[in-house]
């Protein structure tokens, strides 16, 4: 697939982000005016050394963290300065997160974990009314990621690859427009990691799911449409990836 430059409004973009972390008297300037854009259906990987601020950029994009300076825009509108409840809603409806360490809730079964975002979205009464539909939705998604036989298990009983697929299922149940992936293969062996990458690419192809992926692995990064390099808090250059 050749990359064509589309003059379309980016779905999500971050502009001139500065972020400093303070531990005691120690100030660390993690992002120094970095920016990133993604259009709908793009699969971007953000690569850099540890400490380069790539995870922070992802968090800022997904409103998990607020930038000290800069803006985050969704569909052209600013979203980083919205109220807390508005941001919660966006995180629930627009963004989906997956992490290096999966982060499934240990007390819940796989099925319940996948349903969790919807449990959060709806009030108790609304959830109760739709519980069958929601359950079915969860089952469907778990089938899509190939985990139908494990839905009653607890996270402690699942393998790394299964956990990450479960996390993807959880991220997808809300039908997000943007999937933010923080080192999704970081904790997996090469083979399982590749399985995950195949899944991500498939999702991106089939449903035009926009994916912004952070990784430190070049071979993983290369599988995206476009690579963005971060070095010491700043964008190095935009590289147009090879044909995938």
């Amino acid at each position, binding site marked *: 697939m050749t990359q064509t430059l589309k003059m379309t409004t980016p779905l999500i973009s971050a502009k001139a982000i500065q972020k400093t972390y303070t531990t005691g008297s120690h100030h660390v300037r993690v992002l120094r005016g970095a920016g990133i854009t993604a259009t709908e259906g793009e699969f971007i990987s953000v690569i850099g050394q540890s400490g380069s601020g790539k995870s922070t950029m992802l968090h800022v994009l997904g409103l998990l963290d607020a930038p000290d300076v800069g803006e985050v825009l969704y569909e052209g509108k600013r979203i980083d300065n919205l109220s807390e409840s508005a941001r919660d809603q966006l995180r629930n409806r627009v963004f989906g997160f997956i992490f290096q360490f999966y982060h499934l809730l240990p007390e*819940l079964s796989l099925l319940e974990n996948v349903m*969790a975002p919807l*449990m959060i979205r*709806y009030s108790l009464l609304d959830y109760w009314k739709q519980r069958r539909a929601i359950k079915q939705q969860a089952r469907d998604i778990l089938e899509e990621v190939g985990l139908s036989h494990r839905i009653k298990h607890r996270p402690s009983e699942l393998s790394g690859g299964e956990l990450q697929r479960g996390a993807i299922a959880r991220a997808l149940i809300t039908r997000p427009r943007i999937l933010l992936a923080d080192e999704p293969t970081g904790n997996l062996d090469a083979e399982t990691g590749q399985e995950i990458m195949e899944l991500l690419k498939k999702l991106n192809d089939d449903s035009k799911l926009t994916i912004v992926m952070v990784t430190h692995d070049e071979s993983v990064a290369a599988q995206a449409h476009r690579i963005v390099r971060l070095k010491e808090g700043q964008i190095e250059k935009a590289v147009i990836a090879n044909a995938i």
Partner: protein
Amino acid sequence: MYKLLLCVRYLRTRYIALASITSVMLGVATMIVVNSVLAGFTNEMRDRIHGFLADVLLESRHTEGIVEGSEETLRRVEAAIGKHVAAMTPTVEIPGMAQITYGSETYPMPISLVGIRPETKAKVGPLRNYLANHQPREVDGQTLPPLKSADAPVDWELTDEALERRRDLKQMQRDLLEQQQMLQPEVRFSDTTGEVGASDISDIPQFDDEQGDVIADAETEADTNSGIQGLLNQPPVFLPDAPEETERDFGAPLDARVYIGEGLVSYMATDPDTGEQHRVMMAEPGDDITITTVRLGKTGKPETVSFNATIVDIFRSGMSEYDGQLVLMNLEELQRKRGMLHFDPEGNIINDSITSVQIKLHDYANAEEVVKALQASFPPSAVHAGTWEDKQNVLLSAVEMETAILNVLLFLIITVAGFGILAIFFMIVVEKTRDIGILKSLGASSKGVMSIFLSYGLALGLVGSIAGVVIGLLFVRYINEIEDGLSWLTGREVFDRDIYYFDTIPTHVSPMMVFWVAVGAMAIAVLASVLPARRASRLHPVRALRFD
């Protein structure tokens, strides 16, 4: 829904939280048991005092009685508050001394002497329940029916057993007298008009007639004077018994009749072999005692007056203050001895003085109104009207305050449990830091996260409270069995029946009390979870996710 689900899962998986449930549970159970036992004791005490005092009391401020006399007084009471009155009874209450002779010793004791009319007194309070003749008896471990049947009236008649005992004693004394007369014919032994239920003749006081001076037993005189010393310059007066006229009267009881408190005529002895305690009676129905009290003399100055009375029954209320001090006497005789009867020239009684009227109301809720009406009908300088609670105010207030303080202290126990919850929750929040980050990344609000932990606290409080209520109520229900078990375990009696006068530990469970204890415990649990819950809600999602 996620909050509910997580809350339930946390409850089920975190056993350390059981520790905080246990502390809440114990605190609640303790409060329930202690409050129930305290209420039981207090209620028993109140009932007994109340039973003895009736609802409302009209009392004269001085010992010579309400000046209007009993008929006029009762009429006025009826007029003022008649519609509220279920029953009323007149009494004369006066301090005095009683003297019994046991073995070769005489026992003078201070008493509260109350003249009553048993027919009406029994309507105003549970008099029948306190009199030994009307209650079942324990003899050698067996329970026998009462000496007087259930429909026999409460009066001043001796039981057949008492009459027999009296006759036997008199016969013995008569025989002894005859013997001594035979052996020492030159000494004049006068008839025994003042015997006090014993066999030793030398202690019987010798007296002249009514108006004369007293040749009293030195011991008796010193004691009666010492009891009411300082007021009296008059020589004590002894009123001799009516002489026995015919042989038919032999062994007949004296005119003055009394119910005497059990504590005055008995003591507890320990069997040296078995270590068991049993009650030894020093005087019984049929025996005579000497009573000394005060009256206004003919010269207008107070003087002591002594007379003998026959014991008709033993009074046992369960309160040592009463049982150790009370002597109830037939009202008319007491009035007669104290000069409170007024006669017309033919010798008929036209008026009699009383010192108080005890009134039982249909509905105690009207007590305030009744007291006010009574106060309006009698001069406050001479007559005082009040409820039984007014009269016993000091004691009742003290008990109330004790209960309040005890509750505060017990509630502190639950508060301590609350701090335990606080500590454990902080721990759990720290443990769940990453999960909280996950939830926030999924879009959960800070308020939502906070309410997970608040409802967790509430759930713990709820479980702990309910468990505590169940355990507390069970403990109260089986408290006597538990006490038996404890006594067996420790080898000594935990609940000493002789000190406490109860056969079973009295308890009284108030539903309101249980409710408030449970609610209070839950409130503490929720309060304790507020700080940790807030901390959880304020966690920064990214930092939380990176935690560990």
